[in-house]
């Protein structure tokens, strides 16, 4: 037998690589399922009712301008956020609720390094008898600490407005000493619950939505969102 050179390279079996957005979604789902959240889904092609009306964004309301929408010739639209999944889930289930809903969303927007017309969001909804804004802060904080594997991450809330929550907040995360905007959230608006025949005097809770692409960009230090959809294996084979 010949002498083996242990420093020569091994013969590696061929393997494939997962997309970074898949890795991020997997990790997020793992963390949330460990906290008792179920994964829910909804269609990318939505109706105006689920995307807007049921979320307390009536037709002709100026708030509709907050979501630049792609309309389809069949009268439907491409969901502008994952929030319609909240409605679909509440319609089919009885509280309490604990769900996360990752998925592809669309905005009619010019594309650049930080904006894409298609991107991924992660929706969260937790409804119970006594779920508070302080709970929202804690759940999101725990999530980011686990997601970035950094116990020092802090979360702060700032006033904002989304018609389907009240109060409505912007969530900032202190990551490596810097505050950055990371999610929109708030307490589910009583009207949204009542639209789903859920008595808002008995049930209350929080909802949040965050950009999966953005999470991936922060986690892997990616500076151009368009890389996710370019199918360039020089990019994908790094993960």
């Amino acid at each position, binding site marked *: 037998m010949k002498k083996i050179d242990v420093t020569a390279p091994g013969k590696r079996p061929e*393997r*494939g*690589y*997962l*997309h970074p*957005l*898949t890795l991020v979604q997997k990790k997020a*789902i793992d963390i949330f399922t460990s906290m*008792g959240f*179920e*994964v*829910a*889904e909804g*269609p990318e*092609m939505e109706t105006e009712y689920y995307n807007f009306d049921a979320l307390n964004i009536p037709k002709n309301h*100026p*708030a509709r*301008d*907050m979501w630049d929408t792609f*309309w*389809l*010739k069949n009268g439907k639209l*491409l969901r502008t956020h994952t929030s319609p999944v909240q409605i679909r889930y509440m319609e089919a289930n009885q509280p*309490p609720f*604990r769900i996360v809903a990752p998925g*592809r969303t669309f905005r*009619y*927007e010019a594309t650049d390094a930080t904006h894409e*017309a*298609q991107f991924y969001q992660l929706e969260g909804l937790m409804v*119970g008898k*006594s*779920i*508070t*804004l*302080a*709970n929202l*802060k*804690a*759940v999101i904080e*725990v999530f980011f600490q686990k997601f970035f594997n950094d116990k020092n991450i802090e979360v*702060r*809330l*700032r*006033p*904002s*407005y989304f*018609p389907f929550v*009240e*109060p*409505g907040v912007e969530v900032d995360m202190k990551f490596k000493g810097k505050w950055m905007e990371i999610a929109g959230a708030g*307490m589910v608006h*009583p009207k949204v619950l009542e*639209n789903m*025949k859920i008595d808002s005097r008995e049930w*209350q809770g929080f909802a949040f939505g965050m950009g999966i692409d953005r999470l991936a960009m922060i986690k892997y230090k990616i500076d151009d969102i368009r890389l996710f959809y370019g*199918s*360039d*294996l020089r990019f*994908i084979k790094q993960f």
Partner: protein
Amino acid sequence: MKISYEWLKLYLKGLPKPEKVAEILEMHAFEVEGIEKKNKDCVFDISVLPNRAHDCLSHIGVAREIGAIMKLKIRNPKHEIRNKFKIINSKLKIQVDEPNLCKRYIGRIIEGVKVGPSPKWLKEKLEAIGQKSINNIVDATNFVMFEVGQPLHAFDADKVEGGIIVRKAKKSEKITTLDNQEIAPDESVLIIADHKGLLAIAGIKGGKKAEITKDTKNIILEAANFEQTNIRLTSRKIGLRTDSSLRFENGITPELAERAMDRVTELILKIASGKAGSKIDFYPRKANGFKIGLHPKDVLKILGVEINEKEIINILNRLGFGIKKIEPIKNVLKLAKGLTGKPYKYGASITFDSPNHFDCSSFVSYVFAHSGVQIPRMTVDQYFFGKSVEMKEIKLGDVVFSNSKQIINGVIHYESKEFMKGTKIKEGIDHCGIYLGGGKIIHTINSKGAVIENLNKSKQFRNLRGVRRMSESKGDLLLATVPAERLDIRIKEDLIEEVARIYGYGKIKAKLPEETIIPAHRNYNVFYADIVRNIMTGVGFSEVYNYSFVNKGNLALVNPIAKDKGFMRTNLTDGLNASVRENSRYFKDIKIFEIGKIFYNGVETISLAGAMSSVDFYAIKGVVETLLDKLGIDDYYFHDTSDKVADARVGNISLGTIDHNSFELNFEMLVKMAEEEAEYRPISKFPAVKRDIALFVPIEVKVDEVQDIIENTAGELLADTDLFDIYEDEKNERKSLAFHLVFQPHSKTLEEKEINDLMDKIFKALESNSEWEVRK
């Protein structure tokens, strides 16, 4: 909205440095998107979202916020016309034909103005926020709009023929706007006209006809309130968005018109002189002040942090809310009794008609609302909203419901309309009243208005439907009167948000939920997507995410982002093939896959596809076989198909197709058929026997057909049939197939003879096809 720091100083004493102002606004009110130094001023770019566009698209609005946050006193702009100037009688005629679209219209004539340049301070203020100075009159109206948020307009009074008419445009009317655009509004557009023609597109843009010029002597000032949806639709239709339309389309209170009119009059008299006429005010329906009840416990319940009552009152006072401590039920009884005799009006509006007219449910709703208990407007909704109470346990302030059999007025309802919409009561309901104790009830009926009667003698309560308790609250409640401009504050939760943000979200400590965790249900799509991804990467495929938009398909976008992105993808394969081509510049052996939504014939489904750079049908088929095996789908087979090479099927269901270098499967179908549990089969103790068989068959004969015959003939002993060689002899139009056969006995060792007999049987079966030839 651009906000000038120097401008804010007009209303706030002790304003901190601009950076500090930006910081406190960010943490308590709005996002500040930029701070720009401009000469001696500093300009903030503040993102005012639709909920605050009612009151904060103005300097005074932002100043009020800063004042409330920092506990600074606001100096409201003063308007002291009465004391300084002589009021002349007006010759102005105003006619409003569309009271639903124009809720208020205040007009005023000022005679003898001197049009000229604006004073320096005014120019500076407007220029700071990017507005061009035009002349003192126009500048004054603009200044007041950016100060208080009420759009204003000034007409040259001598160019207005007749009077002012607010109406919808007529067919083929035209207007030339101040910026020289010719617009032909359709008949849904609200316009301001005189007796000859159009003066302005209401709430959006003024017209050339009555423009203020340097020769203008007399002016008509307009401070009006136009209905928001109509302004929004018109503004979109004619493609004109202005600072005025922006404010109207978000909705502002009609109360603002008067303040703005007084302020702009004072300003014009000061900088352009003249004599002011009295206000002509068209304001047919003034809204009641809005009231909401709040208990400190409500704040704790939503926020999860305890804020004491004194602090809550203090915060709300700073924001301009009037606060009164009341005992709800006591207040209900007192208020209700005080309204005895008020006349009946079916469908009376709580906002506009109370407390002068009521119907039965508006009476109940109004009395509770003004006692801090928000309940639905309609009888049937109130019935489902309240907590059910037995008649023998009835208490003061409970609401009694009945079916009057339509002797009052209106309609019997059988299901809820707004609250928990669609909840049914099959006995029907149409009437309600408030229990006052001692067997007495107060209710509103068309013959007598609000009346106190004995419950058991009242005709309307013969068919009782139940008693409901609207409020369990014991002790005091804070009754907040909402400032007129805060159209965003309509429910308790809105008030809680006000308290929370001024108090500071930073002071709310994170606290994990105490509720018990119920194990999450498994999501099968996610579960199997994970498994599929593992299988695919295991066989060397990398995952890509392609765009949903493509240049051809059967579901088109109304507003595509680009010409070549006009449709939703109907498959993943085309995208993968393009990705293979692009990657071929850098890689030799490319294998990729994707899981994603496709839109075939308008139906959305989850698809799974793979593609590779080498064209090798059997290789890609092998990938599909591995995938299906791993998913526990074992009864699949492959069939010829017209547009691709093969169709993968189970029974008569198609799972998808395989092409020369790609495959695409219906992922949802895979999830349906997948079996998570594999079943263990005992490993035989007896040795397996291997034999080979080779044969020629005509070129069109399928491997499957041959294999079927072998397997059917061999029976249970045959454990595996494995095709190990195939070649096509094109000249003779035939092909050669060679199989390994594995025989596995379970109860004894196989004898040589048994195998030979079985093989003979197989040969015969194969050769019973006349053109098949077994090679021996």
